[in-house]
């Protein structure tokens, strides 16, 4: 055979191999298409979008996990935790767990992981969640350790779900691209073909069905959808509503994200009538099933119903353009500069169809007689507007925001957004400040009640924003696998939950 035909044959084989998705049908190997390639997959970045899908509970496990449905704290690597007072918690570790490199899971390893997460030598983003708290870990015996929080934290069990226990040999100064953990999957490789994981046969828990998993990164929603359609991938994340056209494969789920439009309280937005008018003049129903998926839920507050502190008594603002126009007129008569242009700030690549949504909302607001101008900003520029310290002089602005609180408690939202000292707060309401401060130190029903009360005041008396929707994600799941996304699927995607379709 001449070398020429040899090359041709090789070429043909390559094409056939590439075009035949059946090539890996024999083993339980799956491929997951996600939008963004992460910068690293370190076990101390388990709360970061894109990294979490790959790492969290797949490679690196946390001490506790939250129940996707009711946010209840469940044991993972920790089997027991108790408050011993003074901010000190005693944590008992699971027996018989080893890291992928063969090292045993013990108290020392956890202490190392906690120290690494807190060190300044490497920027662990999970630290953001417990930013103002100093955690000190101390090993008591092989399977027991003490964690001291300063100041004391009532939410320590939730905090434990942020602590990814990375292998003790993980570099203290480098973010890892080949993490070692205790999870049901271990890292194989990361290259142009994506990130490959394989099943960890020494896993302490139930043996998952999927043997090999590959995460590939494709920026375009249409392409991710197409990959599942053609059988090149089995699961595709973040399919935009217009690409989710196959009810057999596409699954929508509330993803924990809530959207709103924040007011910068400068004239005319400093007048409550205008803020009410903006809420009344926004037809929340119009965007459901059109611009957004028909599964999105109009929101009354910035947290989801499953979160502790959610006030179920609040009502969605009705669409009442007449009343809104009346309020604007009243304000105008009262001397409020309602003609002044109000900037409506969006951020590029925030969530699917955001631009369209803003244009639709802008038009609704124009119709009630307000002068709203859309400005789309690149993230860095947008960030300069939303974080304190704010610029000394600010004009009337409305800023599109999105927030996820998947941590079960309103505390992760309230202080930051609504306390007068909160980094992104526009409010200065002593009553709300008091309720937040109080609730943060409380537990149980009282905590819930205080947060609910704060949310009531915010939503009805202060009106610092236009609540929009609890958002959904669309996931496309191919016919080879069974997977039902849950409320945490965008932050904690357990490959163990996936089963292969029986032939």
């Amino acid at each position, binding site marked *: 055979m001449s070398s020429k035909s040899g090359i041709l044959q090789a070429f043909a084989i390559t094409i056939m191999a590439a075009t035949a998705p059946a090539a890996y049908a024999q083993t339980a190997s799956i491929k997951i298409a996600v939008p963004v390639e992460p910068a690293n997959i370190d076990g101390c970045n388990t709360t970061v979008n894109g990294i979490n899908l790959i790492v969290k509970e797949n490679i690196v496990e946390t001490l506790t996990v939250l129940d996707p449905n009711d946010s209840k704290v469940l044991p993972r690597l920790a089997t027991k935790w108790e408050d011993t007072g003074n901010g000190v918690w005693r944590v008992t570790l699971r027996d018989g767990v080893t890291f992928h490199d063969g090292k045993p899971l013990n108290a020392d390893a956890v202490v190392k992981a906690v120290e690494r997460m807190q060190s300044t030598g490497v920027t662990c983003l999970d630290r953001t969640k417990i930013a103002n708290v100093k955690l000190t870990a101390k090993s008591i015996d092989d399977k027991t350790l003490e964690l001291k929080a300063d100041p004391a934290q009532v939410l320590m069990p939730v905090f434990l779900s942020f602590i990814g226990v990375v292998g003790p040999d993980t570099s203290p100064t480098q973010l890892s691209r080949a993490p070692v953990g205790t999870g049901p999957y271990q890292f194989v490789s990361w290259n142009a073909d994506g990130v490959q994981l394989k099943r960890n046969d020494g896993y302490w828990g139930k043996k998952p069905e999927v043997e090999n998993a590959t995460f590939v990164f494709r920026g375009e*929603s*249409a392409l991710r*959808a197409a990959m599942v359609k053609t059988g090149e991938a089995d699961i595709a994340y973040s399919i*935009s509503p*217009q*690409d989710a*056209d196959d009810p057999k494969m596409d699954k929508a789920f509330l993803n924990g994200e809530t959207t709103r439009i924040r007011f910068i309280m400068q004239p005319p937005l400093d007048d409550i009538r205008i803020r009410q008018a903006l809420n009344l003049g926004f037809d929340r129903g*119009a*965007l459901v099933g*059109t*611009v957004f998926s028909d599964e999105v839920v109009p929101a009354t507050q910035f947290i989801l119903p499953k979160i502790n502190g959610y006030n179920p008594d609040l009502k969605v603002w009705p669409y009442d353009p007449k009343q809104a126009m009346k309020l604007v007129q009243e304000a105008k008569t009262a001397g409020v500069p309602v003609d002044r242009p109000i900037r409506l700030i969006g*951020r*590029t*690549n925030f969530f*699917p*169809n955001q*631009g*369209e949504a*803003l*244009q*639709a909302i*802008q*038009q609704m607001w124009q119709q009630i007689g307000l002068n709203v101008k*859309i*400005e*789309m*900003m*690149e993230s860095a*520029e947008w960030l300069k507007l939303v974080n304190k310290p704010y610029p000394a002089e600010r004009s009337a602005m409305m800023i599109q925001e999105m927030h996820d609180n998947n941590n079960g408690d309103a505390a992760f939202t309230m202080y930051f957004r609504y306390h007068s000292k909160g980094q992104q707060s526009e409010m200065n309401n002593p009553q709300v400040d008091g309720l937040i401060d109080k609730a943060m130190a409380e537990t149980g029903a009282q905590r819930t009640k205080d947060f609910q009360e704060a949310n009531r005041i915010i939503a009805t008396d202060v009106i610092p924003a236009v609540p929009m929707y609890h958002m959904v994600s669309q996931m496309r799941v191919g016919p080879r696998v069974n997977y039902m996304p849950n409320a945490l699927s965008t932050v904690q995607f357990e490959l163990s939950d996936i089963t292969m379709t029986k032939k």
Partner: protein
Amino acid sequence: MAHQILSTPLADAPMPENRFKIILGMLWRDKFAFTATIILLVTILSAILGPWLFGDAAIVMNLRARNAPPFDLSRGFAFILGGDSLGRSILARIALASQTTMLIAAATVFCSLVAGTVLGLVAGYRGGLLGEAIMRVTDIIMSFPSLLMALVILYVFSPAISNVIIVLAITRIPLYLRTTRAEVMEVRTRMFVVAAEVTGASTFRLVFKHILPIIAPTLLTIMTLDFAFVMLAEASLSFLGLGVQAPDVTWGAMVAEGRAYLSKAWWLSFWPGLAIALVTMSLNLLSNWLRIATDPLQRWRLEKPETQNV
């Protein structure tokens, strides 16, 4: 003059009173250029009259007409090309967008053409260290990431259409500069340039009267091709949030927005894409015509036949 054959027609015919008529006649004789001119005129007219013609159809949303299919007259003529993802008439939006699109493309091409040509003339005519320096600056521009440039300009100035024009114009300068320089280096050695030089013509005169008219046709052709490029480049800037801002809209931005709906509603990005392609083609055909019409040597091809004894 005992014997000489002038095979080219003599332009001794009395100067017709109406120049416009001659030009129109020359256009009419090139059917492609004629069609192109009509397309461009329609574009310009729609840029001027579009908002008046369609009223609010380009702005008013009607979520019931979301992604309305084309060629369905039940919603009125404005929806002949279908509705976009917010139920606005695509036809009306194309008309509305033609304004911004043309403004950006024309201004960008003009700015880069002027800057590139002037620098290219200097580099080609003066040469030397200055010329070399200019060429190296173009190397720098060519290697500078345009997205970063866009960001910098956005951060230094406030967002505006002019930013888009500046960014795009800077990135397009090297093209004109290099072409001009290469052509100038050739044209400046031609005899008629030397003849003018020894008569004492100033550099300004040599450059603008003798060199520039000769290289203009080449630049014209590049310009028309670049027009399309600028429209597309603007689209990718919009895509990154660095382009025009709503409610301003361009064809490029429409294509970019519509791309999300390609599998479901192809018409969202197809029509504005077609508009870009049509304008590009028209400009190209017209520039070919213009090249012939402004060249005394070729002009006869477009002139009225006097004797048709074939």
